[in-house]
C-alpha cells in the first residue's frame, strides 16, 4: 500500500492526457470540472481512440480551461465562440472528432446563437456543457441557467428570471443526441461520452457540476461535497424522458439520463448531396467525408 507524494504518477490513467506542467489547475476545491475531465479521459481510454484524430475546443470560463490542461490538439477560443471555431475546424478537417468543452454561460448566453445554429445545421460536433448555474470565473453573476430565487452577485435578492432548460433547448434546436448527467454519475457520464464520441451528428451532454465558491456558498448549500450528496439524493434517472419534463426546479428531482438519440442528415452530407446533384461533374467532393 503505497502513499506517495511524487508529482507525476505514470500509472494514473488520466496522466497521459494532462499537460502536467500546468497542474495543479486553478479550479476550486470541490469543483466538478476535474471530475468531468476524468470521465472524458476514461472514455478515450476505453474507446482506445486515436488521439491524433481528436480535437478539443473550449470557450472562456472555468470550464474553458479544459482545453489548456488536456494534452490533445486543443484550442482555447474567444468568449462564446467555441462552436464557430469548432465548426470551421470540422468543415476543414471532416475526419477529426471535434469536441466542444465549455460552460453554460459561454455556450448559452454569449454563444447561444452559435449553439442553436450548429444544432440546426447538424454539424458533427460533440458538445460537453459544464452547467454550474452561474458565471464562475467572472465573479458569480446571474447566468441563463441560474434557478429562480438563487442568489448571485447581480441578483442579491434572488434571481427572478426563468432559466433555460438546456436539454429542451438543444432538442428544439435540432440536436440529434441529448443527455444530462451530474458529476456524481461518473460511470454513466463516461458511458454516455463514449457513446457520443462513436456516433455522428450534433451531440450535446449537459453535466451539472458544483460551483462551491460562487453558487453553493452564496446560496447556503454547503461545499462541493454537499452538492454531490444533493445530486445523489435528488437525481432520478429517466432515459428517454421528454425533454420538456426535465426542467430543474427547486424541490423537484433532477431528471438525468439520455433523452434524445435520433439520426438526421448532417451538414456536410447534405451539402455533398445537394451540390453534387446540381453541379454534377463540376463539383469537387470533400475529402475524407464519411457518408451517413
Amino acid at each position: 500500500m503505497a502513499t506517495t507524494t511524487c508529482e507525476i504518477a505514470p500509472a494514473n490513467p488520466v496522466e497521459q492526457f494532462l499537460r502536467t506542467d500546468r497542474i495543479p489547475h486553478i479550479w476550486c476545491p470541490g469543483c466538478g470540472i476535474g471530475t468531468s475531465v476524468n470521465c472524458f479521459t476514461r472514455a478515450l481510454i476505453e474507446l482506445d481512440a486515436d488521439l491524433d484524430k481528436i480535437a478539443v475546443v473550449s470557450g472562456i470560463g472555468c470550464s474553458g480551461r479544459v482545453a489548456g490542461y488536456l494534452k490533445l490538439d486543443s484550442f482555447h477560443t474567444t468568449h462564446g465562440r467555441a462552436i464557430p471555431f469548432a465548426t470551421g475546424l470540422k468543415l476543414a478537417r471532416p475526419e477529426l472528432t471535434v469536441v466542444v468543452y465549455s460552460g453554460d454561460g459561454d455556450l448559452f448566453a454569449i454563444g447561444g446563437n452559435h449553439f442553436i445554429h450548429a444544432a440546426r445545421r447538424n454539424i458533427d460536433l460533440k458538445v460537453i456543457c459544464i452547467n454550474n448555474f452561474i458565471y464562475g470565473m467572472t465573479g458569480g453573476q446571474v447566468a441563463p441557467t441560474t434557478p429562480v430565487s438563487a442568489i448571485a452577485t447581480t441578483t442579491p435578492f434572488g434571481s427572478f428570471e426563468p432559466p433555460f432548460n438546456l436539454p429542451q433547448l438543444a432538442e428544439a434546436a435540432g440536436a440529434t443526441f441529448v443527455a444530462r448527467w451530474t458529476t456524481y454519475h461518473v460511470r454513466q457520464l463516461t458511458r454516455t461520452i463514449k457513446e457520443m464520441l462513436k456516433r455522428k451528428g450534433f451531440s450535446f451532454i449537459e453535466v451539472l457540476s458544483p460551483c462551491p465558491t460562487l453558487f453553493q456558498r452564496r446560496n447556503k448549500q454547503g461545499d462541493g461535497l454537499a452538492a454531490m450528496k444533493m445530486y445523489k439524493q435528488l437525481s432520478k434517472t429517466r432515459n428517454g424522458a421528454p425533454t420538456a419534463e426535465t426542467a430543474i426546479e427547486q424541490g423537484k428531482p433532477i431528471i438525468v439520463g439520455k433523452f434524445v438519440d435520433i439520426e438526421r442528415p448532417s451538414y456536410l452530407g447534405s451539402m455533398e448531396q445537394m451540390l453534387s446533384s446540381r453541379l454534377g461533374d463540376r463539383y469537387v467532393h470533400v475529402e475524407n467525408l464519411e457518408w451517413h
Partner: protein
Amino acid sequence: MPKGTVTIIAERCKGCGFCVEFCPTKVLELSTAFNSKGYHPPHVVAPEKCSGCDLCGMYCPDFAIYGVKNGNASSGEDKKNK
C-alpha cells in the same frame, strides 16, 4: 492480499473529500496532516478493503488519487504521449 491498491498524490490534493465520501468500501479518510498548500489529503485506513475499482480516481477533480486492480497492468499504459 487486497484486490486493489490506491495511490494518493498528496501534493495535488485540495481536500474536497469526494474520494472519502464515495469510496464504496470506505478505504479512505481525510488525514489531520497538511500538504504544502495547507489542505488535508486523504490517507488509507483500510488497505485490505480496496477493490481497485478506481472510483476515487474518477471522482477526484485534482487527478490526485487512483486505484488499480492488483495483478493487472493499469489501463492505457501503452498509449503513449503524443
